[in-house]
C-alpha cells in the first residue's frame, strides 16, 4: 500500500503525532536542556 492509499485519518494522526513530538522536544529544550547550557553564558559579575 503506497502513500496515496493511506486513509486520510491515518495521515492526519501521523502528522499530529509528529507535531506533538516536536512540541514536547521544544518544551524539553527550553525547560531542561537550554537552562543547563546557558549557566556559563553572560555572567555579569566580577569574581
Amino acid at each position, binding site marked *: 500500500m503506497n502513500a496515496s492509499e493511506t486513509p486520510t485519518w491515518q495521515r492526519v494522526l501521523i502528522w499530529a503525532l509528529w507535531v506533538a513530538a516536536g512540541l514536547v522536544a*521544544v518544551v524539553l*529544550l*527550553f525547560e531542561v536542556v*537550554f537552562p543547563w*547550557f*546557558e*549557566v556559563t*553564558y*553572560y*555572567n*555579569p*559579575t*566580577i*569574581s
Partner: protein
Amino acid sequence: MSTTVTQADRRVGDPTGPSAWSTALRVLGWVLIAAGVVVGLFIVYLLFWTDRQTAAAQEDLVQGWEELVLPEAPPADEPLRLSDLANIPVQDQALPAVDEPDPDPDEPDSGIPVPTDPGDSYALLWFQRGDEFIVTDGPVGAVQGVTLDDLQLGPGHYPDSEAPGQAGNVAFAGHRTTYGKPFHNIDLLEPGDEIHLVDGRGRHWVYDFREIEIVSPSDVWVVDDGALDGVENLLTLTSCHPKYSAQQRIVAFAELREGAGAVASDGSDLSDGASTEASEAADDTTIEAGGVR
C-alpha cells in the same frame, strides 16, 4: 517483479536501492538541519524567552516597592512615572558603614539595612536624566545576591558590598543580555545622570554617575571600597561587555550625592524632617523576605 529506482539511486550508480553512502549522507543532512533548528531555538531562548521569565519576577518586585514607598501608587496596569517616584524623600547624608556580623533589625536609624536572604527583594533602582528614565524604561527591582539564580530575577546586590547609602562601595550586577537585560544600555550613561536607589526601609539615595570603565571579569577591585579615586561613597554597577558577549565587564561608577546638593533633578523634598518621616513610615512595612520567589 518490477523495481522502483529513484533519481537519487541512479546518481550513486545503484539501481537496486539506496547505497550505504547515500543513506549516510541523507542522515547527516537531517542531523545538520536539526542542529541548525536547535541552535536557532537556543538563540530565541536566550534573547526572548529568558526576558519573559524575568518580566514576571520584576512585576512582583516593583509591585512590592509601590506598596512600600508609594501610598498613592498608580493602578497596577499603569507603569510607575518619575512624578510618582519624586514623592519619595531623598536622604542627604551617608549612613555609617556597619561592620556588625549580625545586625539588629530593630535599630532602623543606625544605618543597618533590612536583613535579606539571597533572592529577596533588596532595592528599587532607576536611572534618570532630567525628567525622563534612561537605561531602562522605568524602575527595576533589585534582589540580594549575584548568583545566576538571583540575577534571573533582576539586578543583584553584591552581598559583601555596602548597603545603599552607606559609606564605602555599594555594588550591583545586572544582565546586559538575557533575563530582562536591565543593564543593556548602561553604556548610555553620561556625567550628570542620576542613579536612584530606594532601600528596604524606604530610604531614597541619589548617586551621580561619574564614569564607565571596561575591565576584565576578574578585576574584583571595582567592588572594593575606594575603587574610584577620590570618591568615598561609591555605587558600582557591573555588567557584561560588549553586548551579547561576556568577554569583559563594563563598570559604571557613581558617587553618593550628599548635603544641600542632594536635591534630585525631579525636585524631591530633601528636608531632614521629610527624610526621617519616610524612614519611620517604612520601618514598619519593610518588604518581607522571600516575597518574590
